[in-house]
């Protein structure tokens, strides 16, 4: 394969070779089912427990509060659906935001069909949740607030501590989808007042298809996937031992390297943002200027459409995205960009670049040049640009 510039780390990341290395013994050698009684299986059980401890330490929880799932989406579904089922007697009202991932939004829609009411809180033009609106939305029947830690498209980081305080004050459970934040930002569930937290391994150089849900001790939610007594009876199904080990390894590395890695990412990101905004006219940065994920840059280029931009960048070996990966097949513009107030035609022309510390300044330079060229080319093709130039 030709050398490519991978700038889509919010969609997924490379599984680090060390992570693969750590998983390997659990496929063909130590393959015992952790639930079995014989000693051979104890290796598998121990491996999972160690991974669980690493993860628990990373968010300041007990290891008995970490439950492995088949990914971030399952964790989100579990948090919402099981809370609804467990606390539905108390009330049927859930609060979330307009810029959540579809794993949250579509689960909310599902719950609405099951008789729950959902309030979708607005965000400001930088993508930050309106705290006053959030607090006012709380009713006696509110059982859950679910607000993402950081947004996957525009990178905006939410005031999690403040949300935690509001939730506490009103005695409402607080779940956060930290799929993008985990491994990039410091997280301590106690300090931030988080009751449940979702994360996914493949966003931090772990494998695709494993995640976890943190559930604070004492929260009475049941399982979402019913069956065997795995995960302390709360998540049935034979444990994915290799991936649990790989997830643990990925978290271990991510925690160790976080400071240095994110520092480098921020430098690359800010360089990229500065060049693009100053060199390409009619361009805006989406999301908050500073309260954003270290590796996220999201732009809107007026008068052009995102997919054609992406394909042309791809022709130049640049992997990027517009909106979130799992909706890129869709015709609708990003709900996140609409929520921060972009008109449709501008929302359609967005580009998300999400870096890793393996990227270089040279790559940024090349990328900026290619974006410039392509935007120019597409604008020349655009009837919207034609109209704009005419009426100027």
């Amino acid at each position: 394969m030709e050398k490519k510039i991978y700038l889509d780390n919010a969609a997924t990341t490379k599984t680090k070779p060390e992570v693969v290395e750590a998983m390997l013994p659990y496929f063909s050698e130590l393959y015992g089912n952790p639930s079995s009684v014989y000693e051979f299986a104890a290796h598998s059980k121990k491996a999972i427990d160690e991974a669980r401890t690493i993860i628990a330490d990373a968010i300041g929880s007990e290891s008995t509060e970490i439950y492995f799932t088949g990914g971030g989406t399952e964790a989100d579904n579990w948090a919402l659906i099981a809370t609804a089922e467990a606390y539905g007697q108390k009330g049927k009202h859930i609060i979330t935001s307009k810029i959540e991932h579809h794993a949250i939004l579509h689960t909310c829609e599902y719950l609405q069909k099951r008789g729950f009411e959902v309030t979708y809180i607005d965000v400001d033009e930088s993508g930050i949740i309106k705290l006053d609106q959030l607090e006012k939305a709380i009713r006696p029947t509110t059982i859950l607030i679910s607000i993402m830690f950081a947004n996957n498209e525009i990178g905006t980081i939410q005031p999690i501590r403040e949300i935690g305080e509001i939730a506490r004050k009103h005695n409402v459970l607080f779940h956060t989808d930290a799929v993008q934040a985990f491994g990039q930002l410091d997280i301590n569930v106690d300090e931030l007042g988080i009751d449940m937290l979702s994360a996914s391994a493949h966003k931090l150089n772990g494998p695709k298809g494993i995640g976890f849900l943190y559930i604070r001790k004492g929260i009475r939610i049941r399982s979402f996937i019913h069956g065997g007594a795995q995960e302390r009876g709360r998540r049935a199904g034979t444990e994915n031992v290799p991936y649990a080990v790989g997830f643990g390894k990925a978290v271990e590395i991510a925690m160790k390297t976080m400071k240095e890695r994110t520092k480098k990412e921020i430098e690359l990101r800010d360089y990229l943002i500065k060049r693009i905004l100053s060199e390409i006219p009619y361009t805006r940065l989406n999301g908050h200027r500073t309260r954003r994920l270290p590796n996220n840059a999201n732009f809107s280029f007026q008068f052009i459409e995102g997919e054609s931009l992406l394909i042309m960048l791809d022709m130049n070996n640049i992997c990027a995205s517009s909106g979130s990966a799992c909706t890129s097949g869709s015709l609708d513009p990003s709900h996140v960009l609409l929520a921060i107030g972009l008109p449709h035609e501008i929302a359609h022309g967005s580009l998300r670049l999400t870096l890793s510390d393996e990227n270089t300044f040279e790559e940024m330079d090349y990328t900026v040049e290619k974006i410039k060229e392509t935007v120019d080319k597409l604008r020349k093709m655009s009837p919207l640009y034609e109209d704009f130039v005419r009426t100027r």
Partner: protein
Amino acid sequence: MYTKKVMDHFLNPRNMGEIENPSCVGTVGNAKCGDIMRMYMDIDENGIIHDVKFKTFGCGAAVATSSIATELVKGKTVEEALKVTNKAVVDALDGLPPLKVHCSLLAEEAIHAALWDYAEKNGIKIEGLKKPKSDIHDEEEINKVSY
């Protein structure tokens, strides 16, 4: 996801641009859906489309369908151009992904819109031409099934 033909027409669009003082021009689609196509035509006194150009805001398929559509109508009579269907557009591109078939409808509409403009400007009636919708909403079944 796209055929070679689509990629070729997307990356090297034929007849892209404007025509100064065209015989007619039609614009269809809307920014909400993410696709806008504009087609300029020069039609001579014999009703032959001797030049056509397009501009498109939209995805790769939108650009490619516009491009191929211009090729399909160029040199044809108005009546022949009217018979260029979205299916012809899709076929000429060796197919489109299901989610993108609507782009070919848009291309068909763009031709009709230009011809409608031509008819209006010249006060004639073209047999079989209906006023094109200015707005194309064609959500695919697959999209609704999703969630």
